[in-house]
């Protein structure tokens, strides 16, 4: 029931915000803030209740489950479930939800009720994506978050919002229709094989199928997640959408929407099609590394501050892709931490850019400069976030990228070596960003207000969260590690011999099970 509330709360808050916008201008944002906060409290309670203490062997995959029949004719159920992976991302969603509301506190005045309705609906859709475990329901939420996001960009965005919004919609919709074909294909393959027609994720795990079938079906899923993840070469919607969206939209896009792609890769692509994923892994990892470098180079070349941050996302999401397809204990953990840390740091950067744009009415970095003197607090926050973006030790991003690289090293040394260049490149763009924006001469004579109390509070919360994950990542790793290992076990049971993983790293992880290749194909715990 708690899982349902996590989705219902934002929806209720949004609807209430719309209804009350008639009477008061400030009620919608207060109600939205309240709803987002309530969601965070609920998520934290869920986390504390279900994930504290050591896991027992007989616990099963899910720590909380809700299952109602929905369309029995097709074997579709309203099936929500939570494990370590999803709870971490739900926590991130609720946290960034509050931030998104806070970031539009003064920015959005026009049609505020409708704005907050859309904002809350996106949050509900994203939460649903992280919790849905029935593939039909997953697709339902997957599409559901699209429309409100489209409205956010199209109605409250900046100058070039219309083409950007349409591009965003078409990219994601087309790719997700291919995923729908993949889902349907999997449904029928499984149904013909077992006689049970169902969309349930746990049942579909380990469906035996021909090699080419698996590759095609996987590519259907892959297309959708690749587009959402914003990894090159399917990223072209991302810079436009991120740049043109209002601040809250950018925060959600970068902080959460991209993560749904990474989540889909971790949860669906590899576990459902382990053999195909294993076969294509070298290609995917190659693509990921190219994306890392490409995104970094593009970020370096941008003059629009928002666009710059958007391209850093392309680069960082390459690490997530790399980590997923390296598919070992280290790299998957790294991918997850990278998602969370990137969500916080890039969400924060967009928040900051939004605040800056609200004050100086431009995003052109060639017109900025010398802002440190007039807004020292804001500049300090910017420096911290930039450092996080370049993965300085002590930030969550470092843990994420380091683990991914470590995991990749075990699979392919050359790829890991090239990916390291991405971190170096990130230093160039991050430092350039700080230098051009906050240092140097104040050419245009900007005199701007420093962070308000609201902005300071949000920034502080973000920085604490980033540093916390960077210095003490155990809560995140411990919560999600078990779930990630579980998924690797089930997929390894069907996949070809996994790369050897001897000698475990200093981070606390569950001991590796006995040689996975010994289990029979198709067998599940």
């Amino acid at each position, binding site marked *: 029931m708690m899982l349902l509330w996590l989705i219902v709360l934002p929806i209720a808050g949004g609807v209430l915000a719309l209804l009350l916008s008639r009477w008061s201008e400030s009620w919608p944002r207060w109600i939205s803030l309240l709803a987002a906060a309530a969601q965070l409290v609920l998520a934290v309670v869920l986390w504390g209740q279900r994930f504290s203490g050591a896991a027992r062997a007989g616990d099963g995959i899910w720590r909380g489950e809700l299952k109602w029949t929905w369309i029995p*004719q*097709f074997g579709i159920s309203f099936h929500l479930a939570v494990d370590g992976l999803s709870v971490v991302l739900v926590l991130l969603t609720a946290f960034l939800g509050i931030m998104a509301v806070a970031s539009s506190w003064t920015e959005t005045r*026009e049609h505020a009720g409708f704005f907050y309705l859309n904002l809350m609906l996106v949050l509900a859709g994203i939460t649903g994506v992280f919790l849905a475990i029935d593939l039909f329901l997953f*697709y*339902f939420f997957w*599409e559901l978050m699209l*429309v409100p996001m489209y409205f956010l960009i*199209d109605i409250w965005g900046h100058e070039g919002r219309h083409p950007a919004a349409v591009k965003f919609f*078409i990219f994601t919709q087309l790719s997700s229709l291919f995923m729908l*074909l993949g889902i349907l294909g999997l449904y029928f393959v499984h149904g013909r094989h077992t006689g049970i027609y169902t969309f349930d994720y746990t049942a579909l795990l380990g469906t035996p199928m021909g090699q080419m079938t698996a590759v095609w079906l996987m590519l259907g899923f892959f297309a959708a997640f690749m587009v959402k993840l914003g990894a090159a070469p399917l990223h072209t919607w991302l810079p436009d959408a991120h740049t043109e969206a209002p601040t809250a939209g950018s925060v959600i896009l970068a902080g959460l929407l991209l993560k749904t792609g990474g989540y889909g890769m971790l949860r669906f692509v590899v576990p459902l099609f382990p053999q195909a994923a294993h076969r294509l892994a070298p290609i995917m990892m190659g693509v990921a590394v190219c994306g890392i470098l490409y995104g970094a180079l593009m970020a370096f070349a941008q003059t629009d501050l928002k666009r710059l941050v958007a391209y850093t996302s392309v680069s960082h999401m390459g690490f997530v892709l790399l980590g997923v397809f390296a598919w070992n204990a280290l790299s998957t953990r790294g991918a997850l931490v990278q998602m969370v840390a990137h969500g916080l740091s890039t969400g924060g950067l967009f928040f900051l850019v939004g605040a800056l744009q609200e004050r100086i009415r431009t995003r052109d970095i060639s017109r900025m400069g010398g802002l440190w003197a007039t807004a020292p607090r804001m500049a300090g926050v910017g420096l911290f976030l930039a450092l996080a973006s370049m993965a300085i030790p002590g930030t969550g991003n470092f843990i994420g990228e380091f683990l991914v690289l470590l995991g990749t090293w075990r699979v392919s040394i050359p790829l890991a070596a090239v990916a390291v260049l991405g971190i170096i490149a990130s230093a160039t763009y991050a430092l350039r960003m700080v230098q051009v924006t906050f240092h140097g001469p104040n050419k245009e004579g900007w005199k701007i207000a420093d962070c308000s109390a609201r902005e300071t509070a949000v920034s502080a919360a973000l920085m604490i969260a980033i540093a916390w994950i960077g210095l003490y990542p155990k809560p995140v790793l411990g919560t999600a590690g078990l779930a990630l290992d579980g998924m690797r076990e089930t997929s390894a049971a069907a996949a070809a011999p996994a790369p050897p993983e001897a000698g475990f790293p200093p981070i606390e992880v569950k001991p590796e099970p006995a040689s996975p290749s010994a289990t029979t194909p198709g067998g599940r715990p």
Partner: protein
Amino acid sequence: MRAADLVLLLPIILPAVTAAAVMLVLAFRRSHGLTVGLTLAGLAASFASVLGVAALAPQQVTSLVVVDGYALFFMGLIIGATFVVTLQARAYLKGRAGRPEEFYILLVLAATGATTLAASSHFASFLLGLEMLSVSLYALIAYEREGPLGVEAGIKYLILAAFSAGFLLFGMALVYAGVGTMEFLAIGARLRAGGQVQSELVLLGLAMMLVGVGFKLALVPFHLWAPDVYEGAPAPVSGFIATVSKGAVFALLLRYCSFLHLHAYGPVQLLFVLIAIASMFGGNLLALLQNNVKRLLAYSSIAHLGYLLVALLASGPLAIAAAGYYLVAYFVTTLGAWGVVTALSGKEGDAEALDDYRGLAWRRPWLAGVFTAMLLSLIGIPVTAGFVGKFYVLMAGVRSSLWLPVVILVINSAIGLFYYLRVVIVLYRHARSEEPASGALREPSLVVPSLSLTGGVALCGLTLALIWLGVYPATMIRIIEATAAHAF
């Protein structure tokens, strides 16, 4: 024919009686309200008779008509849609010059023809139903005699419909010459049994019939009339053509194909694949260029019939259920979209220019919300009926491994996004900042749109149905599986 058969035929008889009754009452007392009330009562009675007859089905009533779950399902759909169109038309006609009352007679007559089509199992009833539908539509399309567009549209439809009916008749004659019977089931049986009946003669006949049917469904390349007629006809009539006329003919086509096992014949199947692909691409690509909402909806409806053909191609009970569900979703969505166009149309003319919709969301949020929901349903976004419909069709296609049409359907859905979103964008455009001064001139005609209580009720009902079908489709699927899909 027995007397009991008359009971079975009630869903066809009652609309006809309604038309006659309205006509008679009109001779004594000309009142718009009374006419609408009588029409609605007659349609409600017809709908009730559909439910009542369901217990007696399935039965063959003479060799012309078969009353089975499939027929009754589509009859119910047709009558329901006519009911909605009647509700929408009342306020639309109220403000206009000329006499509104005869409109309803024609509407109900057209519905009678459509119900006949849904139950037809014989060439004679096929042609009879089709002509009854067509002839009523000629007059309905040109109901506004004052404007040039209406008359042009009416004449265009008249000529092309007569022409295509000729094709249809010739095709029927050829099939009859080759097979020797006019009953669908018997034709199917003989086609399967005899080798030499599968001659060129029969094939040619089938192809010519397809021309006639393709015209009614506005499939590419028989679609040329659609945009002009949709544009020229009164908005409620366009909605009626897009739903009832197409739905009835599609129901007949589906039955015809299933009885004849047309999928077994390679050439025919190839023809359907080509037509489906052409319709999807043609409808969507041509819609991209439209600035007129009525024409845009016309092209969109061409594309949607292309999607439906994919379901038709995927044979089997799943395909029939998919087509049934898609049609229900399409009916609700299309009636809703045309309902909004109707509601926004003032006395001076229909709200058809895209500019008429600029900033509607901030002026009339509820109406804009309904229109958005309908457009999203046409795109196929969750929570709306269109999503489940598209899902169902894709499912049927994937099951039958129709990869080419299915992938083309997916690509076309993306193309369709462009023009649906264009309308959505316009709805939510800030009226203040972006509207040119000329927008102010149009304002007065839109401030008093013809949305009335009945139209509002209809739109509310349609929106609720849209969401119900999109969120909890299990009930409707059960109904369809119990009635429609078991007919074959």
